[in-house]
């Protein structure tokens, strides 16, 4: 399964590839509804690759520094694979269509909405979840600051918020308030923790620099 992604990424010579279709539809609005087994089957048939589905296939995936084997149907999203198969339930599914960022994880260090990504598109890339950002038993500075500044209420958006803010600080140790707002602009919180999220992230940055 390791090179599944590469095959998929090589592009098909005829017809419409799923990847091309997604690109055409605009990634920001394409719902997971597009990732049906039908489309998958169609694509691999075109490429004369292995036909997948509708039954489960076994794949390997690197999550939080460990390689896992899991048996998943082609329609499985990365979010579902993490939650339902690996029981990494810190990643939350709220809207299930890429509009709330509660399911934010890093794929090769880049934040993605895991509800919008097919688990088969992960390939050999490395996935980091909220359970994996504490290093050597030390919380990420953003996690510390969230505790310090009461930046969670019900806590359901918190993992996604932490992932967005931690990614910001990992790449910008001197962010402005506008930078923090920009980093969390896709994160929905219904309890209204935003002011404390902003404060916590700016404070974590100050402590880091």
């Amino acid at each position, binding site marked *: 399964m390791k090179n599944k992604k590469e095959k998929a990424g090589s592009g098909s010579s005829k017809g419409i590839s799923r990847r091309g279709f997604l690109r055409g539809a605009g990634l920001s609005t394409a719902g997971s509804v597009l990732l049906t087994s039908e489309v998958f089957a169609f694509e691999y048939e075109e490429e004369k690759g292995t036909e997948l589905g509708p039954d489960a296939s076994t794949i390997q995936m690197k999550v939080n520094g460990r390689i896992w084997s899991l048996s998943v149907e082609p329609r499985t999203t990365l979010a579902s694979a993490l939650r339902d198969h690996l029981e990494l339930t810190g*990643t939350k599914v*709220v809207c299930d*269509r890429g509009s709330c960022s509660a399911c934010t994880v890093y794929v090769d260090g880049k934040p993605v909405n895991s509800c919008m990504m097919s688990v088969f598109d992960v390939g050999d890339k490395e996935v980091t979840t909220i359970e994996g950002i504490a290093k050597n038993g030390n919380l990420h500075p953003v996690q510390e600051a*969230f505790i310090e500044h009461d930046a*969670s209420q019900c806590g359901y958006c918190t993992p996604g918020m*932490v992932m967005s803010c931690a990614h910001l600080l990992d790449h910008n140790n001197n962010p402005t308030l506008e930078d923090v707002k920009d980093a969390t602009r896709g994160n*929905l919180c219904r309890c209204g923790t935003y*002011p404390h999220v902003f404060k916590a992230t700016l404070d974590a940055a100050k402590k880091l620099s």
Partner: protein
Amino acid sequence: MDTRKEKFPHGIPGHNLGEIEREIPINEPPAWPINDKLKNIGKRVKRIDAIDKVTGKAKYTSDMKLPGMLYAKMLRSTVPHAEIRSIDISKAASLPGVYAIHLIENKGKEGENKEEGKYPSVKYVGQPLGGVAAESLDIAKDAISLINVSYDTKPFVIDVEEAMKADAPIVFDQPIEQQSDGGDVGETHDGSKGEGNVRGPSTSSFFGGPRGDLDKGFSEADVVVERTYRTQVHTHMPLETHGVVVDWRPDLMTVYASTQNTNSVRNEMASIFNLPKSKVRVICEFMGGGFGAKHSAGSYGPMAANLAKRTGRPVWLMLDRQEEHLAEGNRPNSIQYLKIGAKKDGSLTAIQQRSHGTAGVGLGAGVGRIAQVLYDCPNFATEQYDVLTHAGPGAAWRAPGNVQGAFGLEQAIDELAEKLGLDPLEFRDKIDKSEVRKVERQRGAEKFDWSRRKAAGSGEGAIRKGYGVGQSTWPRFVTLDSSVEVKIHNDGGVEIRSSVQDIGTGTKTILAQVVAEELGLAVEDIQVNIGDTFFPVGPGSGGSVVTGSITPPTRNAAFEAKKELLMMVAKKWETDSSQLILEDGHVTHKTDADKKMTFKEATKLMRTSQISKVASRSDDYEGFQQPWGLAYGDLGSVQFAEVTVNTDTGFVKVDKIVAAHSCGRPLNIGQLESQINGGVIQGVSYALYENRVMDKGTGHMMNANVDQYKTPYSMEIPEIENLIIEEYSARSSTDAYGIGEPANIATAAAIANAVYNAIGVRIYEIPITPRSILEALNKVDQKA
């Protein structure tokens, strides 16, 4: 009577703080001094479960996975009004991986109005009809799509004003009762009164009925404001949807529930399945948001239990985002007629209110008590009508009714102030008798720099700044059936147990603070085990009742446990326990400095492995306004809004809110700020953004998702400054109350007043959209 006299702090520090002597039951703990002199109370104590939340370790109901668990999905109606001819489940039943299908059938209990036909009549899109349990959620969804429901469709009505017409399709032709989690609290919504779809009116509350004489009042008025205000339907949209996991074993049904009230879910499930309460256990360790809509077992609770019964396996049933919008609650809309008269000296002479609103197929679409009680006015009457429509039922939402009511009242008060030539704050000083709101106005105005405010519409250029104010009041409700157990273990461990749940407000943390304060320990030393009906019954998390209901018995139980522990130490030291002090993790003797031991050493003296004390909420010191738990005083706020309006595009941005609040003795400053911020942000959303959009042609909600259901994200969040005013009233052993409801009441009104101040034209309807601004400025044609 076994009472004693005790002196308590009373009043507002920096304003009128003094002392008051109260006669209290002899077993009540001694008075706490003001927060300045306490170690754990009124401080920024870290939320004790924050670590679980920031690491993703917190397990919510939706995260549960039990051995052998099945996943369930509900079957829902796709038409707004119909009789069901038949439901064909044959294809779904033969789908591999499907374990059970349960259809909801008409089984009226004795004495109830039983509908004709095998299946219940369909009255809104999204009404639950049945459910499927399968080995995966995907298979359950597949199975639902294979069920064929055949409908005899009927005419329906979605719009409130359409529904009020004589020839409108009728939603219910029989009397109905308010649903248990209905949209209003404390009002009498009588579904048997009225005609057709218009039920009511409700004319009274627990504060009484009409007073004085409206005609006389208006004849005495020098100025009168008479307006109609409109508010929208909006849906709660908690991030974690409604749902349960039911594990029904022969001797016990365990329900993991995303709920604001473990106790009421337990009682409901026991009643539905005819089980003793002792055979149902409801657990809610973490809960992903509710805002008022999660007090009952819903239809999903019994559905999951029925599927568990049919399959003999645990069943997971969480709703999806669309179901959440359609069927699990909304804040009803309102059309409010309001007429207020005042004399030249500023005194109010009469308030007349008449409202219509729809909670869909439910009741509870009132506009609350705020017009009745916020200001002094001798002549008052209200008529609040429920209008039934073919849409999902409303549910309580933070200060039910009163948020709608405040939007009308607080704009009318501003308009009156202008007619009288008074500043809005000066006018409120005359008509608002609350001492704490007076302080909130003063301190808030200073923080906000109210002096910046100029005459309405006096700015120049396309971009206009505006400043406005709004006020709130909410009763101090106490749930008397609130109990808690405090245990001291003989290894020094301390544990708190209650069925009360922490819905994100920080209940776990304040309980730990209270016990730590009483036992002279650190907050980290206290283990809080709550949200489980195996423990003493605590209150539901609604109506801002939790803090005022559960912290006094928590302190009292800790106080009783401490007394017993100190008696053991006294015996060893051959002294009287009244001579002993428990402080900073040590027991010491008042006069003998040589006598000192750690708390842990003291617990080793216990005769049993634990001291366990259960306390229940005692009556307020010197009683209640009403014996069922309506305490004296109120929970008020004054909120100030600063907005920018672009008069070319109609775009409104809320720049800043100053929120001045009181909640008795504040317990945890950070958590209070969090809740106030949340109430404010939901208020911003209510004023400017969110709106349930229904298609009148099909009865479907058009934006039942997250992306098209607009709420504020980081870019729309104003700067929020909180002012938390300490107010001591000496009514219980903690003198503390909640803040959830008042935080949300005044915001939309303050924003509407600020928008008026910016553009000089009033907007009487929310959400205030760019279109409504441009319409008000006559820059585009009015809506047809």
